[in-house]
């Protein structure tokens, strides 16, 4: 492995032509959000249209930008637009500008493209909600913030977008804020993200302290001046930030809870875009990670660990969206694992991020469509046999499912396989451990996704004998066009994106100016050709096991979830990660708060007030203040102080 590999940072040019107006990308959705929030109920009737139009317009501009860039030489594809000086104090000069390069433009297309589809889907999905306008305002806010995140040209502008999407996520998770569980989940998401944000903030502090700048161009150019310890510290702190935003171990617990938000939110924010920001962050910071093999190793370990945690827990949940959420945790684990491989994996991580964006968004929208037709039921044990009732949903969901489990020649097959291959490409124990984890994860993925497929779309129609929580009969039906069309578009992505993007190294070549050349390992611990075979075989095995347990005719799936053995119970309890958080963070904090309250009321106040009373001329001052002596005391003290002044002056100058 060439650990001394150093990418030559691409030259940064000033943007010209259409690219100078890239601020439109940010302004359009933010303007939409502002108009919808300020105009209030007046815009109820057209708010969803305006919100969608803003994002579609941004997508249109993004496409134009993309085509203007592919006309340029690769050396000229990294460009910046400087807008204004944001936080200037002496040596610190935070400029607000945009970096337009293949990496950011790729994200622009993903965010506005999938964003447009999900806005359209939401028109139908939220049509019965009296606050639909507000929903679109928040979605617009999210798109604007996410675009700031990927387009900003410094770590501080990234931070602005980073917390901005956190706010949008908070608002959307708690969109139905009359539900206590939604409010609680939103708060948890924001707090766990803030823990990660400390990492991002400290990384920024380290950059300023050691380089005097936070702009990408200067940091990347001069990263080589940093000592090894500082580079490692920055890399780990950025990773902490990435763990918060991307639901990686140990900050993954908020993401499944975030499913309290409406399903389009889960698809856009908590699957396709925001949660992948951590992958973006590490890929964007590649000049830093290139310098620290130790830092990259930690990234890889976190990725491998998280992908397994996500898979294992995903096997045990009965909530449609939560299974998908843990699947997201696990798939982002793959991406983090990939970018942890450095030059061998940056582009692969982004590749999987894109294909995952398609099929996971599609899977969530499909889940939303199912729940929409099932009186908002989310428990897969109460479903079954829905394939006939919702044919379009079934087919599009099925394609997403096949893409995710890596069915040959669908999207996931290309992107996930490449990561598993690269992981096996590492030398020594790393190859075995990371490759093995990724391979085992693929088998587990096939298992839990097949279980989901079988319980929802096949088998006995368990809902026929049941009533939903609000006492109605279930009458599953296909969703309206505004919902199915986006699902169909995403299904196309699930099928073809992988092939198109990987064919001839299309995506990795395109990303080279941002991420450096994609390296491939010469020797791995197992032969290259073997990896796809192994992956497909193990995935098939995982699917088969799921069929044996849940799919055979003779199997009857109980509506109530049965008691289970210890490993399943552990998985159902999120592998006790929530309990651990509770014991390590929540309980001590509450205890500390209670202790401080006592100390403050009894201790600090008592001591200081006691002293004050003594100085104020007797212990009864405060008691007497209650009984009408206030003014006389106050006046006598004021008088006393005047006397003191006079006395001191007289003594000195008489």
């Amino acid at each position: 492995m060439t650990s001394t590999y150093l990418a030559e940072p691409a030259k940064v040019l000033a943007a010209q032509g259409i690219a100078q107006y890239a601020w439109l990308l940010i302004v359009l959705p933010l303007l939409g959000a502002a108009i919808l929030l300020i105009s209030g109920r007046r815009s109820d009737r057209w708010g969803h249209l305006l919100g969608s139009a803003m994002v579609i317009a941004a997508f249109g501009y993004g496409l134009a930008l993309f085509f203007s860039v592919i006309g340029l030489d690769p050396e000229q594809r990294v460009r910046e637009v400087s807008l204004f000086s944001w936080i200037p104090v002496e040596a610190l000069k935070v400029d607000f500008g945009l970096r337009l390069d293949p990496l950011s433009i790729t994200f622009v297309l993903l965010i506005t493209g999938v964003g447009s589809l999900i806005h359209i889907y939401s028109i139908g999905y939220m049509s019965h909600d009296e606050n639909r306008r507000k929903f679109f305002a928040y979605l617009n806010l999210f798109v604007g913030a996410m675009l700031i995140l990927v387009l900003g040209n410094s770590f501080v502008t990234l931070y602005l977008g980073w917390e901005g999407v956190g706010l949008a996520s908070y608002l959307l998770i708690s969109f139905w804020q009359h539900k206590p569980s939604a409010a609680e989940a939103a708060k948890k998401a924001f707090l766990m993200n803030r823990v990660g944000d400390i990492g991002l903030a400290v990384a920024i502090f380290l950059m300023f302290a050691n380089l005097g700048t936070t702009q990408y161009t200067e940091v990347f150019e001069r990263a080589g001046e940093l000592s090894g310890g500082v580079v490692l510290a920055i890399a780990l702190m950025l990773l902490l930030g990435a763990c918060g935003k991307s639901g990686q171990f140990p900050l993954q617990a908020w993401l499944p809870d975030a499913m309290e938000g409406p399903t389009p939110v889960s698809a856009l924010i908590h699957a396709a875009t925001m949660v992948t920001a951590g992958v973006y962050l590490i890929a964007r910071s590649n000049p830093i990670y290139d310098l620290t093999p130790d830092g990259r190793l930690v990234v890889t370990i976190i990725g491998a660990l998280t992908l397994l945690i996500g898979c294992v827990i995903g096997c045990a949940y009965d909530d449609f969206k939560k299974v998908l959420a843990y699947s997201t945790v696990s798939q982002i684990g793959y991406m983090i694992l990939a970018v942890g491989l450095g030059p061998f994996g940056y582009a692969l991580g982004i590749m999987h991020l894109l294909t995952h964006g398609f099929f996971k968004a599609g899977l969530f929208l499909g889940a939303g469509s199912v729940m929409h037709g099932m009186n908002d039921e989310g428990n897969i044990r109460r479903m079954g046999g829905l394939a006939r009732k919702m044919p379009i949903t079934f087919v599009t969901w099925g394609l997403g499912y096949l893409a995710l489990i890596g069915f040959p020649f669908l999207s996931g097959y290309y992107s996930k396989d490449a990561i598993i291959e690269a992981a096996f490409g590492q030398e020594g124990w790393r190859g075995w451990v990371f490759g093995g984890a990724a391979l085992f994860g693929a088998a587990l993925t096939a298992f839990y996704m097949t279980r989901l497929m079988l319980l929802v779309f096949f088998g006995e129609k368990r809902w026929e004998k049941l009533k939903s929580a609000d006492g109605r009969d279930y009458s599953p039906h296909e969703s309206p066009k505004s919902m199915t069309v986006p699902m169909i578009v995403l299904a196309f992505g699930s099928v073809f994106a992988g092939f198109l993007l990987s064919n001839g190294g299309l995506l990795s070549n395109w990303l080279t100016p941002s991420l450096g050349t994609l390296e491939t390992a010469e020797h791995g611990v197992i032969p290259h050709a073997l990896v796809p075979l192994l992956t497909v075989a193990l995935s098939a095995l995982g699917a088969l096991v799921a069929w044996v347990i849940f799919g055979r005719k003779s199997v009857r799936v109980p509506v109530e979830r049965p008691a289970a053995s210890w490993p399943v119970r552990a998985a159902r309890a999120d592998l006790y990660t929530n309990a651990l958080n509770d014991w390590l963070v929540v309980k001590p904090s509450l205890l500390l708060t209670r202790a401080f309250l006592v100390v403050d009321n009894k201790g600090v106040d008592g001591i200081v007030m006691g002293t004050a009373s003594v100085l104020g001329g007797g212990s009864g001052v405060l008691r007497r203040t209650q009984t009408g002596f206030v003014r006389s005391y106050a006046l006598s003290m004021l008088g006393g102080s005047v006397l003191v002044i006079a006395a001191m002056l007289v003594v000195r100058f008489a």
Partner: protein
Amino acid sequence: MSSAILLPALLLLPLVGAVVVALLRNNDRLARLSALGFSLAELVLAVFAWIAFDAGGARLQLTTSVEWIPQFGVNFALGVDGIALVMIALIAFLVPVVIGASWEEKLPEGRTLGGFLSLILVMETFMVGVFAATDVFLFYVFFEAMLIPAYFLIGRFGGPRRTYAAMKFFLYSLLGGLIMLASVIGVYVTSADVLGKGTFEWAKLVEISKDLSPTAQFWLFLGFFVAFAIKAPLVPLHTWLPDSAAEAPVGVGVLLVGVLDKVGTFGFLRYGLSLFPEASKQLAPLVLVLAVIGILYGAFLAFGQSDMKRFVAFTSIAHFGFIALGIFAFSSQSISGSVLYMVNHGISTGMLFLVVGMVMARGGSRKFSDYGGMAKLTPVLGGLFLVAGLSSLALPGTNSFVSEFLVLVGSFPNEPVFTIIASVGMVLAALYVLRAYQQVMQGPVRGTALVGLAGGPGSATDPESETFKSKIADLSRRELIVLAPLVALVIGLGVYPKPVLDVITPSVTATMTEAGVTDPVVSQEGNK
């Protein structure tokens, strides 16, 4: 118009206003209209002062000086640097907002609105004076004089425990003031030793600051320090603040926490770093420890409060920790951040106080637990509650982020450990803000303050019913007008803080020169 009359005019105008309003106190309508008029005129004057001020110019500007007590070399000397200027601008901005918010204030029996607003205008004069004074004795006089209107505003117009709170406030402040007085006189005496003739003139005292013996510096600084540490409450001298803020009428609370307490942090800079450079550096470790304790302690206590106004007070204690950290971390970024924090905290905590006041005006209770799910009834109030909270937790895009970021990024090179501990305060801030929002605004409509209103305590009332909705109405037009300028500044200063930073930074670097400290991180281009 000569710019020299701007500061005297800024002092005089509210005082005249106070007299007029006091004379009109029997007519609420006229009284509040004239109070608003005077405060807006003051705001216009402040804008003129801002325009007349040259950010790159002299250390003190808009100066004017009249002999007052020639025997002791006391002058009625006024002048501002960028730091004082932004504070005066903040005062001039907040007072009309406060008057607008107090428009229909429910006052205790027998008190008139005119009397209340008149005292607010008196306080405005003294607050402007304390920042504009360039004579140490005059500063002391204003410092103590502020107490009087504040004392009466809390003690006569406040909540049920107002007399206790006012007395506590008074005792603490007076104690600090007396200790400071000893130092003020000490400064005069030592200046006489150096110059042959004593002086209270701040600029002259700065010049001789290096001639003082370290011991003299230390003790003189300590006197100022205690007074300032009480004002800008550093733990453990903070306990007067929650009581005062909780019992004070909402508008007074805004001025108390938003402006009055900043005299302490302002004093650290003007009368600490500049006058006693060596002593400031000597005591810095202690202040840093207290600052970081304050950040965490204030945050945990804010989280644990059951009273909404005390909650706001404790969030301020945490914020004051950040300000003190920035000042005593001695870098231009951290100190500029602290000064900007002083302004932003006035805006965001002011807004939080007002919003909490609007919640209480509807439910009639200060207790968190008496509320719940209120956003369903008052979505606009809910949204603005959240905006104020997000500014308080320094979300990027809001004003407070810029200042908190500057404090932390500027403190880190000199004080990495303290900075990292302080960063934990970012998580805690999110915790206490979101918990407050969740309790009051989210979940199903509940709580005796809301549900009880329509049909007696605890009765199960349909929140959709008309009687219920009419009792708990969303923001009125007046309330919206009061909050709108605050929201505009929260976002405006978050996106484009440069105009304010440009005014602050030169004065901060001048202060650092006086204190004899240099930036740990210097610009790479070497062009300053």
